[in-house]
């Protein structure tokens, strides 16, 4: 048991030290960090778990009932793992609620902040880092 705890602590330490901050390849300037858009009942069309950042494509109904396609960038696998994600935390077909910083130019792009799954599970990306920055 002790061995398992030590091994787990080592893994967490390594992932933490090697993963943060996880924003290395992208620029935050495209996204309005003062705004938070919530996409309710969004259906995941595809999700690429990859470097340098993941790409999540979602279909969401707007206020008129029309389906609108959003594309969000997520962290790299190593930075998401720091926040407790796994490759299969969300998959195509899942219906979720997403919070994101929207693109400044009004296009349907954004940077993912938080996912709330149908069963109530909450997943975040980088909130810890952003709070301390």
């Amino acid at each position: 048991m002790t061995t398992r705890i030590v091994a787990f602590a080592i893994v967490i330490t390594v992932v933490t030290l090697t993963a943060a901050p996880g924003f290395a390849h992208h620029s935050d300037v495209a996204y309005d960090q003062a705004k938070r858009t919530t996409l309710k009942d969004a259906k995941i069309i595809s999700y690429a778990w990859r470097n340098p950042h993941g790409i999540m494509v979602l279909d969401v109904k707007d206020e008129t009932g029309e389906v609108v396609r959003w594309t969000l960038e997520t962290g790299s696998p190593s930075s998401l793992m720091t926040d407790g994600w796994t490759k299969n935390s969300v998959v195509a077909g899942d219906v979720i609620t997403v919070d994101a910083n929207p693109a400044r130019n009004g296009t349907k792009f954004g940077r993912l902040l938080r996912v709330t799954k149908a069963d109530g599970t909450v997943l975040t990306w980088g909130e810890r880092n952003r709070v301390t920055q």
Partner: protein
Amino acid sequence: MKTSAYLPAVIAFSLIATPAVAQRQQQQQESAATKTGGLAPRRDISGHWLGPVSPRKEPPPPMTALGQQVFDATKPLQGPRAVPIAQTTDPLVTCNPQGFPRSALFETRGFAFEHVPRRTLQLLQYQRIWREIWTDGRPLPTNVGAPGKDARDPRYYGYSVGKWADDYTFVVTTTGFNEDAWVDERGYPRSMDAKIEERYRRIDHDHLELSVTIDDPKMYTKPYFVMKQVYTWAPVQEFEEQLCIPSEALEYRETFRPAGTGK
């Protein structure tokens, strides 16, 4: 005849003994690798080290006119001059080599040293890069980029020599750079003839302090002390595979290009 009689026994012994020996060697190596704490070993910085992905860097001294011109032409993704991904000229966005010293200043996702005869090898986890730091007393090349058949080619990671300043401080000097690469993610320049010094001071077994100074009169009016950063002994002395993959980086850039256009 006798030989063939012994052969099955030799094979059987090998099949049984070899895995056992290998397992014992592996256990000994793992025991040594995971040993932590205690004093710094003498003249030894080997092992795997971890630190921040993007260490805090000092502001540079005033640049020369040329340095300012080269700097102004860059469009970084990071820092106070950051632009959207569609507009950047950051070489790393398409996974071009970081080069040195950027490899020590950005995306430092763990590194290792190995002391071998005539040189020390630095192994960088990100992109699986290695640097050869010659310790056999050879001088740095003085003909990099010069005309003539004996000239040496400029390199992204330059030419490096190393020596022990004392029993716990290993000093590396590097020159002969390909000027396509940046000093760091902010887009600061360095010329082919820059001399960059890394001082690795083994504080104790678990801590390694790195100081980086750039001496580049073509680009800066004074030597640029870039950073001092302490790295820690990695609890797992083994690399992950962290790669910048061009096809995925290109797809990422094209996918999010619309997000960074116009206002």
